[in-house]
């Protein structure tokens, strides 16, 4: 099969689904049938893309690139990974929605707009040049807004649409301006390979401004400060929309940063800003999440924090780690959203479990000692053997993994100290630790941008770490730091409060 046909087949699935479902919907066919066909078509697209990915990585003919003048499409590692993720999750979520939205009067609307979004997203990750990427980027944003309008008659849904549209509109205007400057400078479309050369032709302040304008679009799409005000208001759309949104669209910030790395990464000051904004969003969203009572609200702010983590990794120059996080988080969050109705069952399951006894001091000590030893040993060994290259930033990220694995294992052991817990816990920790290092190494090999990266210094990771620890301590505090605790709690709760329409008070 020739390269043009291969690329076309990867891209085609969702667009065929859009056409088929729009036509079928227009002629009043049952939403059920339309949804089934669309999910199957996109599923086929996923299977084909996976086959292409396997073929390319085993036979290793490198990446595929097809161009029309300067405008080009490419199937490099990033494009293949992201296409597989987007097509796979989209078809899975659509398969879920076939039953979940059965009979819903808006089912066809959902199918059409969900595939529109999928189509633009795949086009975006496969774009090999700036103009094509910009078109796909704006198209994906518009498709998301349409998707959020699934339950348009609901006031909440309209509010979500409005907030999203305003923020995307503002940030994407800056993005399009930057793209226009690049295109005018080059006198036509610019392929990403030529982007570094093209940007360096500009004056230094112009380069900086350009980088900032590009970054703005990424921040808005990933719901980062100061654009965080749209994601929490998107729950007026049915659950599959949220799953698709949290698994797909919000990740796009990292894709933009990686693709435009030649124009952004050489500027250390911009990278520091990206890193700090990500870290700030991470701490802010983590605090709000703890104070939210509703399951979907928690998921929303969890996503926002995770996106902060991803953007922060980009700022540190760890683009591969960011993409790795993006993929795993997509799978994680879509599952949690689709299963947002399991709370009552979980509660019933917990209720029937045996009474939990507080661990003795000895058991608690042992649990901590064992988990620290196992975790550190596994990660150090894996790192030394599998991926010996180190940088302060990568060690910092590994510390997050160590902390998480340690806490998880310690809690399991402290809850029930037994041979079974120990064997299973240790095995899983070892497997996960080694798997993490190995997978990340693979990703790094495949995805590092071939441009000089002036990442933010690794010690900046101290900021979110301290912030998160403070938030956690405040949330657990019963008598200590009362004023600060109350203050932070109330501020976190106030994020959910409606904006006060009356700015003046009356005396009591």
């Amino acid at each position, binding site marked *: 099969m020739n390269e043009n046909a291969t690329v076309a087949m990867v891209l085609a699935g969702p667009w065929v689904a859009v056409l088929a479902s729009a036509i079928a919907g227009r002629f009043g066919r049952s939403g059920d049938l339309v949804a089934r066909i669309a999910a199957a078509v996109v599923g086929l697209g996923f299977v084909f893309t996976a086959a292409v990915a396997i073929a390319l990585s085993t036979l290793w003919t490198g990446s595929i690139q097809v161009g029309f003048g300067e405008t080009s499409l490419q199937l490099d590692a990033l494009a293949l990974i992201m296409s597989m993720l987007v097509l796979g999750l989209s078809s899975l979520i659509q398969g879920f929605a076939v039953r979940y939205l059965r009979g819903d009067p808006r089912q066809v609307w959902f199918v059409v707009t969900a595939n529109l979004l999928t189509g633009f997203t795949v086009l975006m990750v496969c774009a090999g040049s700036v103009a094509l990427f910009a078109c796909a980027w704006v198209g994906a944003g518009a498709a998301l807004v349409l998707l959020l309008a699934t339950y348009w008659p609901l006031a909440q849904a309209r509010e979500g649409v409005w907030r999203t549209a305003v923020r995307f509109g503002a940030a994407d205007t800056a993005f399009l301006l930057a793209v226009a400057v690049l295109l005018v400078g080059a006198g036509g479309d610019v392929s990403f390979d030529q982007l570094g050369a093209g940007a360096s032709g500009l004056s230094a302040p112009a380069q900086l401004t350009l980088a900032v304008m590009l970054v703005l679009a990424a921040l808005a799409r990933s719901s980062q400060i100061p654009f965080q005000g749209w994601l929490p208001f998107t729950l007026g759309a049915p659950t599959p929309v949220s799953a698709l949104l949290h698994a797909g669209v919000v990740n796009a910030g990292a894709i933009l940063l990686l693709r435009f790395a030649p124009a952004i990464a050489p500027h250390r000051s911009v990278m520091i800003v990206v890193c700090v904004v990500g870290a700030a969003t991470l701490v802010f969203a983590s605090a709000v999440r703890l104070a939210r009572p509703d399951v979907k609200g928690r998921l929303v702010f969890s996503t926002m924090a995770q996106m902060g983590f991803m953007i922060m990794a980009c700022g540190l120059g760890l683009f591969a780690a960011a993409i790795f996080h993006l993929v795993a988080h997509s799978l994680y969050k879509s599952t949690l959203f689709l299963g947002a109705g399991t709370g009552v069952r979980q509660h019933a399951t917990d209720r029937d479990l045996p009474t939990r006894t507080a661990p003795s001091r000895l058991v608690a000590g042992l649990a901590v000692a064992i988990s620290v030893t196992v975790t550190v040993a596994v990660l150090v060994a894996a790192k030394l053997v599998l991926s010996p290259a180190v940088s302060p930033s990568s060690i910092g990220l590994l510390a997050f993994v160590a902390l998480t694995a340690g806490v998880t294992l310690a809690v399991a052991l402290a809850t029930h100290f037994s041979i079974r817990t120990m064997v299973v816990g240790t095995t899983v920790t070892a497997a996960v630790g080694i798997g993490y290092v190995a997978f990340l190494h693979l990703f790094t090999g495949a995805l590092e941008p071939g441009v000089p990266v002036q990442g933010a210094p690794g010690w900046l990771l101290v900021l979110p770490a301290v912030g998160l620890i403070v938030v956690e301590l405040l949330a657990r505090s019963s008598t200590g730091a009362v004023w600060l605790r*109350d203050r932070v709690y109330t501020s976190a709760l106030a994020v959910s409060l409606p904006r006060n329409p009356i700015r003046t008070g009356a005396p009591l």
Partner: protein
Amino acid sequence: MSLILRAQVAAAAHDIVPAWPLDSFIAVNPLAGRESYPFETETTAEAATTRSGSAYLADYQRGRITRDDIDAALLERIPQLADRRLRIGTAAVSAVRVAELDMRLVAAAPAPEPVAVAELTWLDEYLAVWVAGYLCPDPAWPMPHHADGFYRAWRTLACLDPSLPRTVRRTLTTLSPEPDAALAHALQRLGITAADVPRALRTALGHLPGWVGHIKWRAEKVGDIDLTSYLAVRFTVQVALGITPAADQTTQTAQRDQTTLTSAPFWLRAERVAQALTAARPSREDVAAVARVLSTHPITDQRYTWQKAYELNYRTALIGALRSTVETRDGRNVQLVMCIDPRSEGLRRHLEESSSVETFGFAGFFGVPIRFAHYQARGAIDSLPALLSARHHITEIPVDHEQAHRVVAAGKFRDALRHAVHTADSTAATPFAFAETAGWFYGGISILRTLTPRIHARIVRALSLSPRDLRSDVTIADAFTLDERATLAETALRMMGLSQFAPLVVLAGHGSESENNLYQSALDCGACGGNPGHANARAAAAIFNDPEVRLLLADRGLPIPFDTFFVAAEHNTVSDMVTVLDRHLIPDSHTSSADRFEQLQRTVADKLVTERARHLPGASPRHSPARLRGRAHDWAEVYPELGLAGNATMIIGPRDITRNVDLGRRVFLHSYRTELDPTGAALETIMTAPLVVAQWINHQYYFTALNPDTLGAGTKTIHNAIGTLGVISGHSGDLRRGLPWQSVGLGTELFHEPMRLTVVVEAPLARIGEIISRNQVLRDLFDNDWITLTARDHPAALWHRYTAYGFTATATATPAATATPMEGPHT
């Protein structure tokens, strides 16, 4: 002052229906506060009590309502129309025909706007956030100062709220620490005079009805919040921000008036009817004669007549189908007692096709109100009707200690994993790396659950040893004294009319099984407080098998033969399988009959599942039973089963009345035999407990179907759970009440036919009359037409309709030939 205010708050909240939390869903009549008024009094503008005229007309056109039904409904409602005839032009027409024609013409006119959903005000949204934060059952960060109560916690924290203007925050620090004083102060500041306070309180409580209902429940059952503190916050914020009550009320303009209809001139209406009756132009006398008839039937009453006709169509066919012959019962090997739940009807009907089975209907908690905890479990369920409170605590004693050890160890291991995952997911610093590592597994699970839910369920089942697998006895003797046990047993036998025992008596509770379903509790047993009924069935079987209890029962004239054994079972309402529980207790002499019963049951279950598939969205009778049952494990399935949709009737009487009649799983069946109830006490209990619960369920479905977005919970697809407390729609707002749309409809069509409960009783009319007049709750329901009653003394007697003035004989009914009202919910 404080006491008066508290009394005023209580009075304002009198009509508010308490809302149970989601994990013990209790169906309620959302308009229960109005039951002491006639059904037709229109006191709330927000709730529709009937469907629209055009919907009824469509039913008329497809034969669901016939002309006879309309005539009967008219005569029932306007008796003076009977035998009245008038002359229009040259022809003689009956008054009933005139009124009926008028109804159809009016119904064809443009319909009024449907009920608008009231928008929330700023104050509503503000309070919804604070109340949700305070009441959240599983907070990751509990609200500080929670122990001080809602008002005080709010007062402490709101002073730090950055969303409030600084001046407001400063004034909040001067507030009284007592909610009562703050409420009184705020009311005074708003300039509300003492006489206006009750109205102001009622108006305030009319906002956020979901949260207010839950707070009322919570104040009674938990006590950490009450309506006084809620109102104190509400009014204080209103004063502090200078929100005028008038501005606050502007959005409460939900209207449902009949403007388009009532504005049609009365004379024009009469003229149209007269014109339709005569070929030529009607004379003035004709119009006047018609107008005299129409004046007895104003337009605002007509939709109630339609509703009555709609219900009569069903009732007439039902009464006509009931049997008047008594069979002799011999050679029954198995007696099966099931819950009165309509879903039992299908199984009972199919099982009785085998002559060896006799079935009974009884409240699904089998008269044993318990709080039940599994062996060494950390939590318990209150498995009893909402009318009672849990005083008897029951748990399990394992039979096999080695197995018990394994089950507990497996449980603790499972707990360790769950706790570890939960901690990694919910602490501030760990979710990032956790998502990176666990995400890959989650993705795999997602694929399995979506593409092959049945395989996923099988894997989960194979990996976990559930507490339900433990062989154990229930600790019935610790919870009840011997005398209590004997009394429970005697009451139960007399209520269900069971005196001739088969060798094997199966007591089958019921539970539902579904994935990813926040409303799973609404599909479980209502008599068990929204829990599965297995524990009660086990406890009841243990009581009936107790030799000491049997001795006492024999003394009281209810001897149970030595060779009769009671076994507990559970009916799964998604798979329709009945599983026999506590097999280890069954003596060798009875194992073969238990096996035979299970075998018979399995074939019957397949038939029933296929029968139900006709009405289940997305299912078809062509699907294999295994596939249909797979819906229980499908996390994408929003219609695992239809629950009690379609419920329309409760029949109290011997099974002889209904045996071999297909009632379409729409009927609550309570067994009752007058002979076993010499004093009438059992009938009184049935009519004041199971009947009332059936009425709650019936009205819950009725009003959810008519008001899916206000009294119902709206679509499941945007539900957002607050722990196990309840759901909101989208990112904020009021706690949802009632049932989700997926319980009553598909797409834009209802599959639940909203009909008020038709109660049918076979018992002495005089006794029924006495019981009703003794109980205010029954008088309210029957006299005010919230539900209806049809009764007869004995199989050979005529059916009588209950009215506020006594019983009147109904015409002997014939089964309707055209309509098929006995069918289940249509899709």
